[in-house]
């Protein structure tokens, strides 16, 4: 079972950043996908920055993030870089939570002129966090919505890369101690084996 978590740092409602995150997530065709909007956790993220402690609302999100097989991270471009909320979230993620995890990066902006934010701002930070950042990053400018551009093709390509990378590796999910119990007969055999030697 593969799980993909998409994280949108968009602030507006409706948000084109959320829209891009959803479209990328849907295109990966994993068994389980969810999109988290950071705006709903903005206060919790700030609390974490100030107290260095994940509160009860934030903890399950961070756990699901650590357990996801692949991530989709999408930020709006604010003043030629990622948004403050996006960076704040990366700042509170456990340092090794993203290690070795396949990550698809995306960004939305008013103008295509800011596309390189993906390569110069997002990619280096995620590389620093030792994520496996996929080669295709998706930028959607305002003009990409509702017009006949190649956005769909770029989404398909990037999502394909994420799906392939996730398929290549063993599932991440936490080891559930009750998921694969030792059959009772084996336990009995074990006991009888031991009595033989005693």
């Amino acid at each position, binding site marked *: 079972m593969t799980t993909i978590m998409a994280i949108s740092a968009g602030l507006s409602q409706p948000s084109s950043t959320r829209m891009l995150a959803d479209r990328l997530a849907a295109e990966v065709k994993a068994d389980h996908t969810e999109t988290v909007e950071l705006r709903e956790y903005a206060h919790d993220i700030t609390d974490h920055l100030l107290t260095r402690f994940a509160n009860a609302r934030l903890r399950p999100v961070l756990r699901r993030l650590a357990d996801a097989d692949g991530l989709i991270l999408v930020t709006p471009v604010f003043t030629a870089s990622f948004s403050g909320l996006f960076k704040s979230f990366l700042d509170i993620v456990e340092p090794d939570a993203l290690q070795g995890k396949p990550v698809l990066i995306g960004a939305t902006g008013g103008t*295509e*002129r800011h*596309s*390189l934010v993906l*390569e110069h*701002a997002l990619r280096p930070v995620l590389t620093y966090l030792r994520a496996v950042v996929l080669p295709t990053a998706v930028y959607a400018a305002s003009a990409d919505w509702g017009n006949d551009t190649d956005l769909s093709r770029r989404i398909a390509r990037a999502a394909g890369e994420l799906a392939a990378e996730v398929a290549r590796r063993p599932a991440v999910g936490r080891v559930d101690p009750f998921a694969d119990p030792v059959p009772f007969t084996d336990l009995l055999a074990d006991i009888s084996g031991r009595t033989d030697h005693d």
Partner: protein
Amino acid sequence: MTSLIILSGSPSVTSRTGALSDHLATRLRGDGHTASVVRVRDLPAEPLLHADSTHPKIAEVADAIAGAHGVVVASPVYKAAYSGVLKLLLDLLPQFALAGKVVLPVVTGGTPAHVLAIDYALRPVLSSLGADHIVPGWFVLDRHVEPLPGDARLDQRAAEDLYPIVDAFSEVVRGRHALAVA
């Protein structure tokens, strides 16, 4: 009199960056500066590739930069960054070759998706060369530049965007010079 030098970093003969550089030189002369254009492709390849800064042609450029009040650094966008040819020349200059100078970065490129190559790729290089004041730069789409002999014809909208940037650079150069001689 203020002197300006325009470094043009395209390897191509029919370079749009080069044509744009000539065009800017003409505009800046019209604004009262002396301006010369150095096309990196016209410099000898051997000293560029072997990092020979003592070669007379290279030393000549370094001296011209040292004597200039302002420098326009023009490059095509290649693979999302400035050209390698431009960097060959910059690498041969003294560490703080741009100290005390006003610098204007200008790039030409095939897609607006690469506009930020100016601010994320080129600007840090110019800062590391000690530039005093790097004014806001500009990106011109290649199809908006039509090379002419010794000049370029610019798309009208592109010119309307670019000229205020160039004129602002010109003003800063003049202003700093006036302060320095006062």
